[in-house]
């Protein structure tokens, strides 16, 4: 008998399988996004010449427009343009648009002729803001929402349960631009506990970074914590009536172990899924919060790009957001396999 290599751990094979699938998924997502931004202007009646004129500024001469059209390859077929786009990501690209000559270093996700800058560094500069906002708020709402949900479920029908679920209902219903403006009005202007909310990099002054982000964190977390509290409560109520909870009690386990090790563990699984997706979405830009608090992250970048009809910027930020969601999806799936043994097999 030949010696066989030991089979890799099921979680490892699962991760490898999912990683390969994720690479393909990202390529498909980029193709679709690219095709949409290639086709949309044409469906709206734009000509390649019209597109080119967008890149050149006011009152262009027809000759200059034609030159740009050629140089940018706007008249090339879709696959060729997509190929150039991919090449730019890996190798970078030189843009020569009449008056403006520019080099877009790799990874080149396009060049904004309106801002006269490559898209990638602009997005990267917005990332710390968005990441700070999303991660901080996520920790707040995850801890707060789950804790309130668990307590509500265990004290079902009590004053605490009714009160917190009432607040949660309000939290789910109130939009961020409402709660955000009220928070600003109260705690930044009327009682200036958190004055001058603006982003300070963590590396520069961690204390100021945290202080200035408290309001956006709380406002963003309030919305999600409300949702998570309700989800956790429902999940806990369901799991605590499962047969295996009765078994855990029959073993003589302390109630704390029954609740946390046996109850919460099972109730958290769907929460993990939703949490991953929410984080992924937010990393692509917490648009409403960033606009409300004038934080220059990806969300505000997106809004400005759309207002300026800056196609390369919109394309870039869409791809980045898609990337975050796909990665979040991957992390969720892997976590799921770690948490729930039934997924692995």
């Amino acid at each position, binding site marked *: 008998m030949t010696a066989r290599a030991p089979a890799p751990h099921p979680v490892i094979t699962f991760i490898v399988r999912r990683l390969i699938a994720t690479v393909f998924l990202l390529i498909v997502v980029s193709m679709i996004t690219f095709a949409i931004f290639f086709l949309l202007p044409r469906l709206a009646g734009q000509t390649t010449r019209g597109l080119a004129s967008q890149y050149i500024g006011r009152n262009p001469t027809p000759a200059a427009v034609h030159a740009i059209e050629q140089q940018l390859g706007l008249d090339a077929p879709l696959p060729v343009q997509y190929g150039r786009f991919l090449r730019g990501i890996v190798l970078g690209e030189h843009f020569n648009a009449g008056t403006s000559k520019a080099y877009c270093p790799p990874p080149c996700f396009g060049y904004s002729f309106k801002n006269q800058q490559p898209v990638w560094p602009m997005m990267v500069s917005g990332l710390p803001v968005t990441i700070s906002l999303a991660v901080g708020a996520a920790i707040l709402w995850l801890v707060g929402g789950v804790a309130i949900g668990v307590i509500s479920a265990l004290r079902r029908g009590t004053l605490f349960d009714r009160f917190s679920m009432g607040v949660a209902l309000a939290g789910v219903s109130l939009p961020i631009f409402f709660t955000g403006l009220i928070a600003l009005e109260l705690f930044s202007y009327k009682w200036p506990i958190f004055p001058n909310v603006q982003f300070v990099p963590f590396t520069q002054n961690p204390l100021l970074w945290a202080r200035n982000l408290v309001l956006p964190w709380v406002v963003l977390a309030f919305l999600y914590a409300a949702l998570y509290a309700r989800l956790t409560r429902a999940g806990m109520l369901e799991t605590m009536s*499962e*047969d*295996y909870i*009765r*078994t*855990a*009690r*029959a*073993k*003589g*386990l*302390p*109630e704390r*172990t029954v609740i946390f090790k*046996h109850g919460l*563990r*099972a109730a958290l699984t769907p929460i993990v899924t939703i949490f991953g997706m929410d984080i992924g979405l937010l990393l692509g830009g917490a648009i409403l919060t960033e606009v409300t608090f004038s934080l220059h992250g990806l969300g505000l970048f997106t809004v400005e790009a759309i207002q300026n009809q800056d196609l390369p910027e919109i394309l870039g930020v869409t791809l980045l957001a898609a990337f975050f969601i796909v990665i979040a999806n991957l992390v969720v799936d892997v976590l799921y396999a770690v*948490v*729930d*043994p*039934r997924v692995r*097999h």
Partner: protein
Amino acid sequence: MPDTLLDVQDLRIHFPTSDGLVKAVDGLSFSLERGRTLGIVGESGSGKSVTSLGIMGLHHGTNAQTSGHIRLDGEELVGATPGRVRELRGSKMAMIFQDPLSSLHPYYTVGAQIAEAYLVHNQVGKKVAHKHAVDMLARVGIPQPATRVNDYPHQFSGGMRQRAMIAMALSCDPELLIADEPTTALDVTVQAQILDLIWDLQQEYHSAVIIITHDLGVVAELSDDILVMYAGRMAEYGSAEEIFDQPGHPYTWGLLASMPRIDEARLERLIPIKGTPPSLIDVPSGCAFHPRCRYAGFTDGRSQTDVPAPREVSPGHLVACHLTGDQRRKFRTELDLEETEAATARMTQGEL
């Protein structure tokens, strides 16, 4: 001198609900000696499961009102602190449940779940507990226990899961094992194996066992004594031989007539008991069985007004019925005759 392990006296477990008071168990008394098996039989809603949960102290968390006495090895459990009952759970008394798949936690390995039961009652390290889990799996007949101990419940077959449940329940060597419908969710072929296993382990551990079931076949196989419950009360109690050979309660007659038998060539059809079990909120007055009992008219109306007290009809054999001994013998003989006649009639019609 009888070696009594469990003594239940006048146990009442009532649940207040918005619809009214549910009297799930209403004045139940029985006792159980070490090394013996008691089968508790009854239809759904007869209070047999609540009785077992009540003994284990697992009916708490609901707003149950419990009164009476449950003495385990002389120690009173009714009114004992939840902490004390928790200590006894899993160590001195253990329970296995109907559906082994939903009763095992899907996220933990079978071994971890068995080891957990051992760890909570014994001051040992994790390695010792793991080793113990392997030993227990071996003892309940799981092949390759050292590998299977790391499997998750969904990787086990139904019979193996129930074996694992039994291993978990027995991991602390309990003196009382309660099995609530242990074979109902299993394939017929596996049922006998599990019953054999419970029997073997009982001989080995000399523990007392309560088997709760609606299946008379199960109790016939395993039980020394049988308690027939109806609407939260005792209908009949006695040794298995007495109950099967000399059943005294019309409800027990009905149960026996509705049970298929393989051991004797049965000529009659199965005869179902008419009607449905009563609601435990609105239990019929007097004898709870009287609306379904064809002999209720022979008790001078007492079955509608008085709750029959269990009476000893022969040593150790209790029957809660208003009929006199003579009446019972007469009706029983008539019933046997009736069944035989019906069978003969069908035979002559060429139905067989």
